[in-house]
């Protein structure tokens, strides 16, 4: 492919390479972990895992590719997803021969690799987190999971992720300081005490982990030196020598230059993803913690903005080479193979000033220039953000790869403070993964990303006396059938009752998941880098972090509102449709002409969420609030063990879950046919927002957004023509400012690709290899998506003029 993006030769080469290398699987880590687990069977879990990590970092293949300026690797080659057997092996064994035949997100392991996976796996059967999770799961909850009303598979088949570590601290104190700190606290332990004996295992493993990380970095120091000695090109030789010197320095001491600081950041990003395969591992506020280095180097004349850009571009390419292999059913929730490695820029300083600096621009531009799916770039909007920076953001949005997304300080910061987050921490929040938010380096895992609750199924149960139509089971007796309800209020009561039951079920499932992960797969390094684990002598999962709030994902938000509005208006108020007719048609999926006629009435003669119509918007709010208020009652496994919070809030950042979640829901009263996708995130149902983007903003703003801190995901699609001219961009800016500053919107992101382009790409994927679209809180290569997700994206409304 031609170098159309104006990248340097080196960056172009590296970008092409990562784009054209077929994804595969790497078994190095799996082999080493298996060996260590077998050899040290009797060791305490954390120590065993620390040793496994150490041996992996010492023995895994490392490489430095042609022209690379930042180095480090996750696995034996780019685009090779490591296999993590301690979380799950059965799906891998079942799907091994299917991986290369998937309709989207395929992997191409060689027969040799497959054989190794088959050889490693038997040891793990019955010992993995998913096995243990199902063993611990109360029977009824397992049935609810099997019925598909709640989904938590991804939480049991992989690590947690959804976190950002304290980069600020790491870059300030350097790795040796961590060893000192560990020693300091460790020396105070009274080992006759049960709790302290447990902490001793923590400190022991964290020390092994930090030293292992140092060894890993030292290996690159040595490798770069070795390559430099063999290098004939003097320029490249000097580059390799500098890489070597940088690695040698940061292995122990705090970085002194921007280059070193960025290199350290990348090492952390990779090693934390070697330790665990939890995705959404995020960089936090990169423009803030790297800026002092950049500023100093610039003043000292040892860096140029151009070189800083090139380093950033190389970093983005490196992190695109990080791959994760998920089971097919989990893949459908995360279409496009995203790792959701978020970088956040902009926002405010702790004292409320605009935090945008030169580095914010460089990060924005470099992401725009490489135009890849990683990192997932978020911009923190606040009302004093300059027009200039916003315009630059809009220009990158116009490129059409879905970035940056905006989060809104005006709602998130007050929301966090209300939760009990200290002011200076609240001002320092960053996006994690897609759109969810946390205080980097101080917050536990999964500020969102716990179980998925399918609102479509819950609603149908409420209309069927509690019977789950999908499984034929009644998990919670209902309050009657649709035909029994004499008023809409009775129906709403039935919804409230069912959703409360399923809220509790979701929390119970989360508790099982968290217990299993805590007991079996504590993350060593990740905990070391999150406050205040070292001080407390606890892993994050044991309550080591300063803050700990989590949320699950609710899927089918707009469908819920639209369904309730249709029943209220057409059945109870206008009586245009009878209860019997509706019930019959939901059951038979709007069969025949009469069914279609009824469906059209539901679609066309009832208000739809996204059109600034209080009738449906407030009904949705009410129904959702029953769930949100119920969640206030529950707490997490860390409750009473240290962190501030340990409660739940709501979340709608449901990634691509709307497609597979819809595939298990029968016909709904909003006129949606059985098994078709649900509405995505908090966006209106496809094609129902007919009044344009401003009306959508107004509708979204009516939801209790300050209580949905797990994210209020809004995807808008604009046709490229809409923002082509400068004047149009100014209008988009005014619209965004209104949404955020006045309406207190939570988040928005844009797909600026024409329908024609998407249709063409579906037809001729080979010509659109690097076409990127916004899926839901993240971007993905369109041609990697399975056909049903492609269709869903095409169907989402394109707002034109």
């Amino acid at each position, binding site marked *: 492919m031609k170098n159309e993006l104006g990248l340097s030769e080196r960056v172009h080469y590296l970008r092409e390479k990562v784009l054209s290398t077929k994804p595969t699987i790497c078994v190095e880590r799996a082999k080493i972990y298996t060996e260590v687990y077998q050899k040290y069977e009797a060791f305490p879990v954390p120590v065993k895992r620390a040793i496994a990590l150490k041996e992996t970092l010492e023995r895994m293949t490392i490489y430095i590719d042609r022209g690379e300026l930042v180095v480090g690797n996750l696995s034996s080659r780019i685009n090779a997803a490591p296999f993590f057997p301690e979380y799950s092996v059965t799906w891998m064994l079942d799907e091994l021969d299917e991986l290369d035949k998937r309709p989207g997100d395929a992997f191409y392991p060689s027969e040799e690799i497959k054989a190794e996976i088959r050889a490693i796996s038997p040891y793990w059967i019955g010992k993995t987190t998913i096995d243990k999770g199902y063993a611990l799961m109360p029977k009824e909850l397992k049935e609810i999971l099997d019925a598909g009303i709640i989904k938590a598979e991804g939480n049991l088949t992989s690590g947690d992720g959804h976190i950002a570590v304290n980069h600020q601290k790491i870059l300030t104190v350097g790795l040796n300081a961590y060893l000192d700190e560990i020693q300091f606290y460790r020396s105070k332990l009274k080992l006759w005490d049960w709790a302290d004996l447990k902490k001793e295992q923590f400190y022991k493993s964290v020390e092994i982990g930090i030293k292992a990380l140092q060894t890993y970095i030292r290996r690159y120091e040595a490798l770069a030196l070795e390559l430099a000695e063999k290098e004939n090109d003097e320029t490249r030789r000097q580059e390799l020598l500098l890489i070597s010197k940088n690695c040698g320095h940061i292995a122990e001491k705090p970085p002194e230059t921007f280059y070193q600081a960025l290199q350290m950041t990348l090492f952390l990003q990779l090693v934390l993803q070697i330790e665990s395969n939890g995705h959404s591992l995020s960089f936090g506020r990169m423009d803030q913690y790297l800026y002092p280095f950049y500023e100093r180097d610039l003043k000292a004349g040892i860096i140029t903005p151009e070189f800083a850009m090139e380093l950033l571009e190389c970093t983005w390419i490196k992190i695109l080479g990080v791959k994760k292999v998920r089971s097919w059913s989990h893949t459908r929730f995360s279409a496009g193979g995203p790792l959701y490695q978020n970088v956040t820029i902009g926002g405010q300083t702790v004292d409320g000033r605009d935090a945008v600096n030169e580095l914010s621009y460089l990060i924005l531009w470099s992401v725009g220039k490489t135009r890849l799916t990683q990192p997932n770039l978020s911009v923190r909007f606040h009302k004093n953000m300059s027009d200039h920076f916003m315009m630059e953001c809009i220009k990158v949005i116009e490129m059409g790869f879905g970035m940056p997304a905006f989060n809104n300080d005006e709602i998130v910061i007050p929301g966090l403070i209300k939760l009990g987050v200290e002011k200076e921490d609240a001002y320092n929040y960053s996006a994690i993964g897609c759109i969810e938010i946390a205080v980097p380096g101080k917050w536990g895992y999964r500020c969102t990303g716990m179980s998925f609750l399918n609102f479509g199924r819950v609603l149908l149960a409420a209309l069927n006396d509690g019977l789950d139509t999908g499984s034929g089971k009644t998990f919670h007796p209902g309050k009657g059938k649709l035909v029994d309800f004499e008023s809409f209020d009775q129906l709403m009561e039935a919804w409230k009752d069912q959703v409360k039951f399923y809220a509790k079920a979701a929390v119970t499932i989360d508790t099982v998941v968290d217990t299993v992960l805590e007991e079996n797969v504590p993350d060593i390094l990740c905990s070391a880098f999150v406050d205040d684990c070292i001080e407390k002598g606890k892993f994050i999962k044991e309550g080591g972090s300063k803050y700990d709030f989590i949320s699950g994902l609710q899927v089918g938000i707009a469908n819920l509102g639209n369904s309730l509005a249709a029943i209220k208006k057409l059945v109870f108020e206008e009586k245009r449709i009878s209860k019997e007719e509706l019930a019959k048609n939901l059951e038979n999926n709007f069969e025949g002409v009469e069914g279609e*006629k009824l469906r059209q009435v539901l679609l066309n003669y009832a208000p739809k969420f996204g059109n600034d119509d209080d009738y449906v918007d407030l009904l949705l709010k009410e129904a959702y609030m029953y769930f949100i208020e119920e969640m206030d009652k529950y707490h997490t496994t860390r409750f009473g063990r240290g962190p501030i919070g340990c409660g739940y809030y709501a979340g709608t950042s449901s990634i691509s879950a709307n497609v597979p979640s819809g595939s298990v829901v029968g016909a709904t009263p909003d006129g949606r046919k059985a098994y078709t996708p649900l509405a995505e995130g908090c966006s209106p149902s496809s094609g129902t927002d007919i009044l344009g983007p401003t009306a959508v903003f107004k509708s979204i703003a009516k939801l209790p957004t300050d209580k949905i801190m797990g994210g209020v995901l809004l995807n808008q699609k604009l046709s490229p023509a809409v923002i082509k001219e400068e004047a149009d961009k100014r209008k988009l800016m005014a*619209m965004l400012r209104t949404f955020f500053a006045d309406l207190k919107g939570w988040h928005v992101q844009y797909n600026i690709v024409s329908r024609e382009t998407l249709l063409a790409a579906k037809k001729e994927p080979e010509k659109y290899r690097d076409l990127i679209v916004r899926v839901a809180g993240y971007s993905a290569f369109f041609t990697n998506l399975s056909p049903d997700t492609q269709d869903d994206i095409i169907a989402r409304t394109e707002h034109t003029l």
Partner: protein
Amino acid sequence: MIFNVQRFSTHDGNGIRTIVFFKGCPLRCPWCSNPESQSFDYDIFFDKQKCIGCMECVKVSRNKEFIRTDEGISINRDNITDPLLFKDICPAKAIQVIGEEIDVEKLVKELEKERVFYDNSGGGVTFSGGEPFAQPEQLIMLAKELKKKGISIAVETCLDVPWENIEVAIKYVDEFLIDLKHVNGKKLNEVTCGNFAQIEYNLRKLEAEKVPVTIRIPVIPGFNHNADDMHAIIDYLDSFNNISELHLLPYHSFGKGKYQQLGRDYKLRTEALDKSELEPFLVYANNKGLKTVIGG
């Protein structure tokens, strides 16, 4: 009577606007992209593709307005005496009755919903059509209420109305967008039924009243898309001193589908004009000192 309220409009006046489309127009431009705007009476859109064949309309028919044929449902427009009979009866909205009497209170409430967007973008409400000045009483009633709320008003007009209709409204209108199709009265009348003498009279009156106006010329192949006509129009405009901007709007045929739904033929070509085909006129107008852009 109005026929549509369109939010988030960004090309018909300053900022982000909501357009109120008035129904009824003295002109009959064959390129009109909203053909349902022309009649002062109700229209019926019938979109056969949306029809699910449920027979609801046939059941409602009294005079074989809709009948079932071998090719599905068919409409007999000549038989329709009471269009409102068919309002909201089609489940699939394949039949839509176009036109709604203005309920000022309800409409103002709807228009106010976008208030924050107007305020932040310098936008407001645009009256378009149809010809808004053809319904001066309704226009004034609505304008008064909007002004009370401090909402800015733009009017898009062809000016082919009695001067009095405009005069009474001037004080409410913040922005005049004038769609000028031609300055050759004969050509104009042949193709659009327009009366250039009336238009010219109003143009001069506005100039005399010192009302700044934006002139918008739809550039139509086979009508005014040639150097002679365009130069004549621009030369003519050059003689005014109240023109703040000139917009050259390249021809498109987006309205074609609507003609079908009204049971009318679309007589112009499908192919749109490319922006570049207007470049020479942009240069010509700019050279005359008229601030000109292509597109709105």
